[in-house]
């Protein structure tokens, strides 16, 4: 056990899996010598050589498409998109191919690959429109994919290992703000966190907050604040976005009767809409207040100027305010 940053958990999971299984390879822009622009793959090149830690040409369709090919022929590629924002030149390979190959071949072929993407932004990231995007709604809608978005280093390591061992394509979303802001004691050796189950991070009887990635941390902070004001919040970490753990989501809603779904992405048609829609259907009889969402506004992104960054991004204060309003409903 040692305290590790979120980004170190990424690295550790990859290093351990690559040591365990020769078929695991890492490919992406600057993942080799540079060790990744976020330093998530530092030293892996030295350890595993340039056939397994591949500095690719600057072309995301290639990264995704070549990874699919590798996965079809016995390797277990981890493909990194340098920023989630830059995954879109490769979107066709993921949308048309990765998620559909197993199904369309009636089980004849499988695509055991992981598509890692740093995503998200917020105050202090200064990523502006093209280094801050939340992209989960695009990927979680694609049938045949699995999509995870962990908030804690423990989950990062366990879920990434599970993703690497999974026989399906898994989109693995790493929140940039968490990389060096979130620390946690995690076991040194091997362990897995299963893809699928959500996790209740805190229990309270007045309201349920749903979040993932960095918004989970903001929600937990908000819950602290709310507690000081006498409002006790349940906080659900929706760490797997596809498939969704409907049972945990619905039960947590039923227990409090009030829900707030928090996400950093643009509100409209965002991933939180699905969570809200599920609750509005399956927990309906238990609801005491409108199903509410708090998310980024419907503008093309987090502006570069600090003022714009702050205005765009949901945070603990905004969450607490919205939750309070609901609790008093």
């Amino acid at each position, binding site marked *: 056990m040692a305290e590790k940053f979120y980004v170190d958990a990424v690295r550790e999971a990859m290093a351990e899996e690559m040591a365990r299984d020769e078929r695991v390879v890492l490919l992406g822009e600057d993942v080799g010598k540079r060790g990744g622009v976020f330093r998530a793959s530092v030293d892996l090149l030295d350890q595993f050589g340039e056939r397994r830690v591949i500095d690719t040409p600057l072309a995301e369709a290639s990264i995704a498409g070549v990874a699919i090919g*590798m996965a079809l022929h016995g390797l277990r590629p981890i493909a990194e998109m340098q920023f989630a924002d830059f995954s879109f030149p490769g979107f066709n390979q993921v949308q048309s191919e990765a998620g559909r190959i197993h199904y*369309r071949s*009636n089980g004849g072929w499988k695509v055991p690959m992981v598509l890692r993407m740093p995503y998200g932004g917020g105050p202090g990231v200064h990523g502006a429109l093209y280094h801050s995007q939340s992209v989960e709604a695009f990927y979680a809608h694609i049938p045949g994919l*699995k999509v995870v978005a962990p908030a804690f280093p423990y989950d990062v390591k366990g879920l990434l290992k599970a993703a690497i061992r999974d026989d399906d394509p898994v989109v693995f979303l790493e929140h940039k703000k968490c990389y060096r802001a979130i620390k946690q004691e995690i076991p040194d050796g091997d362990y897995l966190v299963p893809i699928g189950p959500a996790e209740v991070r805190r229990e309270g009887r007045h309201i349920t907050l749903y979040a993932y990635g960095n918004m989970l941390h903001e929600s937990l902070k908000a819950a602290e604040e709310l507690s000081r004001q006498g409002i006790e919040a349940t906080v659900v970490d929706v760490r797997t976005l596809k498939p969704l753990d409907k049972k945990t989501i619905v039960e947590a809603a039923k227990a409090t009767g009030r829900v707030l779904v928090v996400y950093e992405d643009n509100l409209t048609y965002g991933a939180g809409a699905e969570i809200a829609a599920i609750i509005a259907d399956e927990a309906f009889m238990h609801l005491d207040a409108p199903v509410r969402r708090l998310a980024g506004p419907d503008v093309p992104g987090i502006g570069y100027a600090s003022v714009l960054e702050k205005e765009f991004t949901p945070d603990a204060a905004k969450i607490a305010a919205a939750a309070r309003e609901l609790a008093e409903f």
Partner: protein
Amino acid sequence: MADDRRMGLTKEDLKEMYRLMLLARRLDERQWQLNRMGQAPFAIGCRGHEGAQIGISWALKPGRDIVLPYYRDLGVVLRMGMTPKEVMLDFFAKAEGPSSGGRQMPSHYSHPQKGIVTQSSTVATQTLHAAGMAYAAQQLKEDRVFYTSIGEGSASQGEFHEALNWAGVYKLPVLFVVQNNQYAISVPASKQMAVDRVSVRAAGFGLAGVTVDGLKILDVYEAAKEAVERARRGEGATLLEVMVPRLTGHSTDDDPRTYMTQEEMEALKHRDPVGHFASFLKEQGVVGDDELAAIDQEVRKEVDQATDEAQKAADPRPEDLYTRLYATPIEL
């Protein structure tokens, strides 16, 4: 042919090549016929391409090499061992169709046991898969060549160029084939590109590039053989373009009269590779008319039987819609 061999091909080889291309032709004709009779919603043909397809795939080793074909590659998948019955099961969208169990449109071939990789309808995506598979084979120290093909129109896709680039950087054992029939549905090659030949792009990525007349089956075979040998020697990929006629509309949904003149369509008929190869084999004394007729009869019987058997097979059931979504299912 004075001796029995040309480029290492025996008479039996030549006859088998002919039989395969004729089989592709007859299956294709049957599919269009069934469509016209209202017994199948869709067919897309290989007619005109099958000669080049057999020429190229004869250089591959079924059971070892892998193909990532496109929808016209009926000749190629037959060479890899797909049976006429399997082809027709897919055509009728039957549950036991090997490619997809009735999920995909016909001609979207897949057969893991026979080294045929599933493709989508989205053109050119498979070229990148070929690069990735070839990289994996290198890494696993396997001696395999990866065939992948597209039409000249699809060669306009960015992903195709990215695949050429990857193959160049890693000297991958890939045979990139462009079947240039001068049309992408209705769009002539002159609106697709400012060059006459797609193969001229190879040099820009450090690949060998060559264009061959798809009616000259043995020239095609020779070029493919060289490319395959280069790949096996670890010298990298080749972009092989074959000039072929498209002897039908794009598919049964198309009406080529809206964009081709009658003369143009007539002229194409003179470029039929099956007829050409038959004449060639006769000229060379490999077969006589009787034998040709016998082969045709045998092939037709095979096609009849495949059709009958396939037509009788079971359709998918409604519940089949939901299966095999994930290879690692998740219980929640």
